C-alpha cells in the first residue's frame, strides 16, 4: 500500500479518530437531542390528551348548559302557561261576576221601572177617578132642582127607614 501512496497507520488513525468523534457525538449530542425530542413528544401527547379532556369537558359543559337552557325554557313555558291560565281564570271569574252583577242590576232596574210604571199608572187612575167624581159632583149638583132634591130625600128616607 505504501507503493501506491496510502499510509495504513494514518488510515487506522483516521478510523479510530472518526470512531471517537462518532461516539462522542452520539453520547454528547444525539442522545440528549433524542431525549429532548421524546420529552417534547410526550409533552405534546399529554397536551393533546389534556386538550382532548378539555374539549370533552367543554362539550359536557355545553351539553349541561343546553340541558339547563332547555329545562329553563321548559320551566318558563310552564310558568307562562300557569300565569296565562291564572289570568284566564281570573278574567273568567271577573267576567262572570260582572255578568251576574249586570244581570241583577238590569233585573233590579227593570223591577224599579215596572214598579214606577205601576205607581204612575195607579196615580194616574186615581187622579182620573178623582176628576170623574169631582165632575160628577158638579154635574149632579147642578142638575138637581128642588123637585129632584125632594124626590131624592124621600127615596133615601125610605131606604133609611128600612134599616131602622
Amino acid at each position, binding site marked *: 500500500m505504501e507503493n501506491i501512496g496510502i499510509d495504513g497507520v494514518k488510515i487506522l488513525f483516521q478510523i479510530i479518530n472518526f470512531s471517537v468523534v462518532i461516539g462522542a457525538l452520539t453520547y454528547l449530542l444525539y442522545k440528549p437531542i433524542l431525549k429532548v425530542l421524546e420529552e417534547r413528544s410526550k409533552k405534546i401527547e399529554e397536551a393533546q390528551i389534556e386538550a382532548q379532556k378539555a374539549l370533552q369537558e367543554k362539550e359536557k359543559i355545553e351539553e349541561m348548559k343546553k340541558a339547563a337552557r332547555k329545562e329553563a325554557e321548559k320551566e318558563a313555558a310552564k310558568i307562562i302557561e300557569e300565569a296565562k291560565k291564572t289570568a284566564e281564570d281570573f278574567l273568567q271569574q271577573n267576567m262572570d261576576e260582572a255578568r251576574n252583577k249586570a244581570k241583577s242590576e238590569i233585573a233590579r232596574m227593570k223591577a224599579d221601572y215596572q214598579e214606577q210604571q205601576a205607581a204612575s199608572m195607579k196615580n194616574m187612575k186615581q187622579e182620573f*177617578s178623582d176628576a170623574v167624581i169631582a165632575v*160628577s*159632583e158638579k154635574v*149632579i149638583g147642578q142638575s138637581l132642582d128642588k123637585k129632584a*132634591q125632594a124626590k131624592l*130625600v124621600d127615596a*133615601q*128616607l125610605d131606604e133609611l*127607614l128600612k134599616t*131602622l
Partner: protein
Amino acid sequence: MKVIVSTAIELSTAQQADITKKLKTKLDKSASFDFEVDDSLIGGLVVKIDSNEVDGSVKRKLQLIKETLYQQL
C-alpha cells in the same frame, strides 16, 4: 133622643113634618128633631140619631163609587 136631619137644600115645613112623622114611627116618640142645610151633601139626606149616623147623601154615594174605583186600580 136627639135627631139631626141634614139635607143639601132647605126643606119646606111640610117636608120636615113628613120626615119627622116617618122617623117617629121607627124611633122614640119623644125624640126631638133638628133640620140643617149642608150644600156639600149635593143631594139626599144624612140622619144623625144621637151618636149614630146614617148617610144617604149623594156625596156619600159618590164617595163609595170613588172607593170602589180605587180598590179596582
